[in-house]
C-alpha cells in the first residue's frame, strides 16, 4: 500500500527529506524543553485555572 507514496517521490526528494529533518529537529527541541521543566513549576501552572475563581473574592468587593 505504500507503493503509491514511494513512486510519487521522483526527483522531489529534497522537499520530503527537508520535511523529515525539520520534523526530527522540532521534536528533539520540544523533548529537551519538556525534560528541563521543574516539577514545582508544572504544579504551579496546572493549578492556575483552579485558583482564579470568584469564590476567593471578598464579599465586601461585590458590586
Amino acid at each position: 500500500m505504500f507503493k503509491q507514496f514511494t513512486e510519487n517521490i521522483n526527483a522531489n526528494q529534497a522537499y520530503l527529506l527537508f520535511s523529515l529533518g525539520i520534523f526530527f529537529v522540532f521534536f528533539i527541541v520540544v523533548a529537551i524543553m519538556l525534560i528541563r521543566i521543574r516539577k514545582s513549576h508544572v504544579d504551579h501552572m496546572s493549578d492556575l485555572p483552579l485558583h482564579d475563581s470568584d469564590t476567593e473574592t471578598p464579599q465586601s468587593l461585590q458590586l
Partner: protein
Amino acid sequence: MQPENFYYDNKIVRNFGIATVIWGIIGMTVGLIIAIQLYHPGANMGNQYTTYGRIRPLHTNAVIFAFVGNAIFMGVYYSLQRLLKARMFSDVLSRIHFWGWQLIILSAVITLPLGLTTSHEYAELEWPIDIAITVIWVVFGWNMFGTIFKRRERHLYVAIWFYIATFITIAVLHVVNSFELPVSAFKSYMVYAGVQDALVQWWYGHNAVAFFLTTPYLGMMYYFLPKMANRPVYSYKLSILHFWALIFIYIWAGPHHLLYTTLPGWAQSLGVAFSIMLIAPSWGGMINGLLTLRGAWDKVRDDVILKFMVVALTAYGMATFEGPMLSLKQVNSIAHFSDWIIAHVHVGALGWNGFLTFAMLYWLIPRIYKTELFSKKLASFHFWIGTLGILFYAIPMYWAGFTQSLMLKEFTAEGMLKYPNFLESTLQILPMHMMRSAGGAMYLLGVIVMAYNLTRTALQGKLVANEAAQAMPLAPVHTIARESAWHRRLERKPIQMLIAALLVILVGTFVELMPTLTISSNIPTIAAVKPYTPLELQGRDLYIREGCVNCHSQTVRPFRSETERYGEYSKAGEFVYDHPFLWGSKRTGPDLAREGQKYGNAWHYNHLMDPRLMSPGSIMPEYSWLLTQTLDTSLTVAKINAMRTLGVPYAPGYEKVANAELDKQAKAIAANLGADHIKVKSDKEVIAIIAYLQRLGTDIKANKTANK
C-alpha cells in the same frame, strides 16, 4: 506590595453567549432546510435565494463563524481575564469586536443568498467583507494582547498559548486565502488559478478546521474541564507537547483534500504522511482531557456538564482518528466526494464543537448570573436528544457514503459500469438522507430547549456585569531569579510565544505552498487550452453565483470507474485560466469536468428549467429564474481586464470587442435552441450558463482530435 482590586467584564461574555445561541439556532435551521432539499427539492420554496447552492455556504459560515466563532470569543473572554487576573484591556475594543463580528455575520446572511460568493469553501464572503474580517480580527488580537500585557499572573497557562496560536494562524490563513482582484463592489477573482488556487484553498480549509474549530476549543478545554471537574489537568507536560506538536503538524496536512487530483504527487504524499502523524498530538490531547476526569468519573454520572464534555472529547477522538484514516489514498478514493465526509465533519462539529459549547454555556451562565441552572432535567434532556441526534445524523451518512461510492465503482462481469446513470446511486441513498435530517432536527430541538433553559436561568438571576476580584500586581521582572528552563521563560513572554508559534506554522506552509506556487514546471501547460470566451466567462460567474460547485465537482480522478463514467482524467494544465478553481469537494450530482458537448443545448435548457423532465427522480433544484433573468453584461469589460491582469492571455483591446463577441455566441446558441422549438432571447442568463457547460473539458477533447 498591596493586592489590587479590579473587576472582570462579564457583560461581554454574556453578549457573546447570547450571540452563540441565536446564531447556532439560525445556522442549524438553515442546515436542516438544505438537508430536506436533498430529498425534496421543492423545499427551496421555488426561490433562488433559498436554494441549496446558495444557502449551503450560509449554513457552513453560520455554524463555523457565527455559532462556533461567538462561542470561542465567549470562552476566551471569560477564561483569559481569569487566567491573567486582569479585566479585558479595553471595553471599547470588546464592544467593537462584538458588534463588528455580528455585522460581518449579518453581511454574510445578506450576501450569500444573493449569490455574492468567491466560491472558496468556508471563505465564500466577498472582498469587502474579507477586509472587515481582517480589521475585526486585529481588534480581537489587540484586545487580547493588551490584556496579556497588563496581566497579574506572570506565566501564561497552556490555554492562552492555544488562543495566541489561533489568533496568529487564522490571520495568516485568512490573508493568504483572500488575495482577490476586485471587479466590482461585490465581485472579485482569486489571484491564484487552478491547481495553485486549489492548494491555497485547502491549505486554508484544512487549517481553518485546525485553528478555528480545534485549537481555541482545546484551549477552552484546558481551562474549563479542570474547572468543571475541580481538579488540575492530567499532565501539564503532555499539554505542552500537545500544543507544539499539534500546531506544527496540522499545517502540513492540507493536501489530503486533493488526493488523486492534479496536485503534484510529492505534495499529496507529504500531506498524507503528516496527516497520519496528526493522530499522535490529537489523541494526546484527548487522552489528557479524559484522564483529567480520573477519580471523578462518579461525578460524570450526575453532572450533565461533564457528560457533555465526555461526549465532546470522545467525538474529538473519533474525528481525529478518522481524519488520518481518510487521508490514506485507498480509503480516500472511496470516501472523498461522498456523504462519508459529511458524517466525518458532523461528528466533529456536532460532537466536539457543539457539545463543548453547550457544556461551557451551562457552566458559565449560572455563574455570571449568580444563580443555579433553571432545570437540570431539561439539560439532561438536551444531552440525550443531542447525543441521539448525532447518531441519527452520522450513521445514515456513513451508510450513504459507502453505498453510493461502491455503487459508482461497481463494474459488471463484462467490464461495463453497473450503474452508468449517476442518479441510480442518488435514489438509493434518499432514505438515509431522510434519516439524517431527522437526526439534525433532534439535535436542533435540543439546542432550542437549551435556549429556553438558559433564558429562564438568566431571568431568575441577575447579571454580575462587573465581577470583583483581587490579585497581587506583578513584581518587576528584574526581581525574579533567572529561569533556566526555556519553556518556563517562553511562558512569560507573549510576543516570543507569538513569534515561535508563527515560525512553527510558517515552516510547513512554505515547504508545501512555495514549490507549487513558484515553479512553473509543476503545472505543465497544454497548448490546446484557451481562455474562456466572454459569454463562457459570464456563464462561469453564474455557475459560481448559483453555487453549482457545492454539488458538482470538476475534476476527474484517474480511476477506471471515473474515466469510464466521465471521460479522460483531469490534467493540471486544463485549469490554468480558472480563477477561482471549481473542483468542488462533494458529488451530490455527477462530475462536470467533461460535461461539454455531451448533450445538446436543448437538453441543458430543459434540464435547467426542470431537471426532472430530463432525469426523472433527480433531486436537482429547478433553475427557472435563469430562463427569465437578463444577463448583466455591464461588467464584461472589467472582467476581461481583470483576467488579463491575472495573466489570462486575452489580446490587447479584446475587452472592446468582448460584448460583441458575447452577443454573437449567444445568438448562435439561441438560434440552435430555436431549431429545437425552444424560443428564448439571446440575452437571458440561461444562454451564458449553457455556453459555459458546453465548454467544460472540451479543450482536451479538441486536442485529442487534433492529434489523430
